[in-house]
């Protein structure tokens, strides 16, 4: 489903980063563990098509991502990859519902208000449909960002340190929610983190140094 082979990246003036091969089947949940500075976020950006690898290849389904043109990659990302960041950011001028509609629209999909309402309801955010992101609590923002990542029923969900800033109770809640929602859309989940608390939740694990 999601495969990488001999993936490497280099920032100007820094030693090159080399990543272990990944081979995740459809619907599997994986944990990528590594200390700060190990290149976890770089790996996530490579997998999400936000960075182009200097070497190696990334294959999602039947598509070799690094062979796609820029605009095709943008569209591919919008339709097949959902990304969750450590800090939940939104388009501030739009309501929570409109942020989800924007994710549908930018991926070239038809805006489905019914699905937005249903998804927010599943995440306990139905009452925040028309609220601006600034009116949400930290936990609500994190749930809303999960909703945005899965609104287009992606093949892969990439989560970058989704629990690092949370206490144990919220950490458990968020990772369970992530797994549950990934399962609901039958997506492959890949969580990149240094948070050792997640080791007990996700069995497939890779470490990067």
């Amino acid at each position, binding site marked *: 489903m999601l495969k990488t082979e001999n993936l490497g990246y280099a920032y100007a003036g820094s030693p090159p980063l080399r990543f272990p091969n990944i081979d995740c089947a459809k619907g599997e949940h994986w944990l990528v563990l590594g200390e700060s500075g190990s290149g976890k*976020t770089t790996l996530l950006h490579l997998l999400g098509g936000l960075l182009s690898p200097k070497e190696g290849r990334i294959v999602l389904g039947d598509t070799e991502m690094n062979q796609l043109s820029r605009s095709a990659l943008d*569209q591919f990302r919008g339709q097949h990859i959902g990304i969750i*960041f450590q*800090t939940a950011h939104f388009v501030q001028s739009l309501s929570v519902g409109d942020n989800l509609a924007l994710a549908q629209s930018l991926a070239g999909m038809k805006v489905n208000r019914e699905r937005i309402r249903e998804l927010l309801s599943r995440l306990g955010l139905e009452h925040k449909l028309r609220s601006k992101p600034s009116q949400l609590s930290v936990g609500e923002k994190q749930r809303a960002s999960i909703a945005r990542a899965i609104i287009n029923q992606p093949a892969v969900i990439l989560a970058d340190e989704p629990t690092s800033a949370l206490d144990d109770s919220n950490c458990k809640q968020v990772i369970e929610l992530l797994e549950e929602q990934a399962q609901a859309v039958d997506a492959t989940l890949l969580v990149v983190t240094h948070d050792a608390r997640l080791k007990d939740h996700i069995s497939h694990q890779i470490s990067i140094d």
Partner: protein
Amino acid sequence: MNLLKLSWKNLTNKPLNMLLSLVLFGLGVGLISLLLVLNDQLQEKFEKNLAGVDLVIGAKGSPLQLILSSMYHIDAPTGNIPIKAATPFLREGHPIIETSIPLSLGDSHRGFRVVGTEPEILDLYNARIAEGQMWGKTMEVVAGAAVADELALKIGDTFKSSHGFDQNEDLIHEDAESFIIVGILAPTGSVIDQLLLTRFSSPWAVHEHEHEDEEGHNHEEDDPDHEGHSHEDHDHEGHDHGDSEHRHDHSSGNAEPYPEDLLAYKDKQITSILVKFKGHNIQALNMQRAINENTEMQAATPAIEINRLYALMGTGTKALRWLAIVIIIVSGLSIFISLYSSLKERRYELALMRVMGASRGRLLALIILEGLLLAVLGYLLGMALSHGAMYLLADQMKETYQYTFSWTNFLVEEAYLLGGALLIGLVAALIPALQVQGMDISDTLADG
């Protein structure tokens, strides 16, 4: 969620920034549009009211004043001229003059000028009687369409004129005979719509009657205002009819107190003559110089004086136009600063949009659309301001000069102004848009 809606939401998310840019842009566009509309309507009025008149002959003084008072009816006359001196230009069969129309000015009714003249004035302005008939006798009046409409005048209505052109009840000629409306003109869009036209002799009748009344009541009283405004010398001896007959006749309203042609009253005065030449030959061109050099009168060419007026107005108009351009440039800068600073704050949002699948081109279009939206809204605000100001100005112009200006007239140039506004919006948005296009998503997200 289309780009237009997103642009609108982004703009309205910072209402104060948006308002500042809009107000500045609106002011610049509004000022330019107002100048265009005002200039166009003034030119139209000036040109339409030229009515093919080649020369205006009147008392010595400012030539522009003579033109403004006799052709546009927006200034006081320079004085009066004796019919005796004007006779060569009023006589039929003049070798180079096709038409000459005498005007007697000095009185008004509720702000509209009463003009003593000849019926040929209607041909000059292509006017026709819509209702009633042409005046036949002294004190009969044909009202212009705008006067009749504004004062709700009907055939058979009577009024007493006031001395001068101001609306002042103290200056009404209470003791003079009343004017009577016998005809109403169809609208022409020219100055004749604003006039109360009457036989050349009516102003004499009003002032002679008043003078007689003054003499009857207080022979020693001296009225300098009346003197300064006399249309005639108040002498009936030059007429065929006797004094006593005159007094009785126009109080009864049956017999004509001035039965002869204008030229028969050589000892009386008129204000000016509108002259149309048969052709523009050297003799016609020399006539103005000959009058100015050899007579106690002056002759002025309307086209030259109006060009002089344009030149005078042009300096002010130019200054205002430059001011408007400066305002528009400042507003363009304001749009640029507003978009630039807002995009700095929204870098992470824009990177997120890339994550969600937005192409670079789409983000470029989004930012440019925001600039264009501001420009269109600023343009619309400017149009509303300019035509709103025109509406207020039209009211004031009507009150002061009885001229009608339209606030609903839109010009092709205003459409070009929209093109200019869009260009400024585009240029102001281009730099921030290109910056966004070159943004590194990974770096931006890592910084966030």
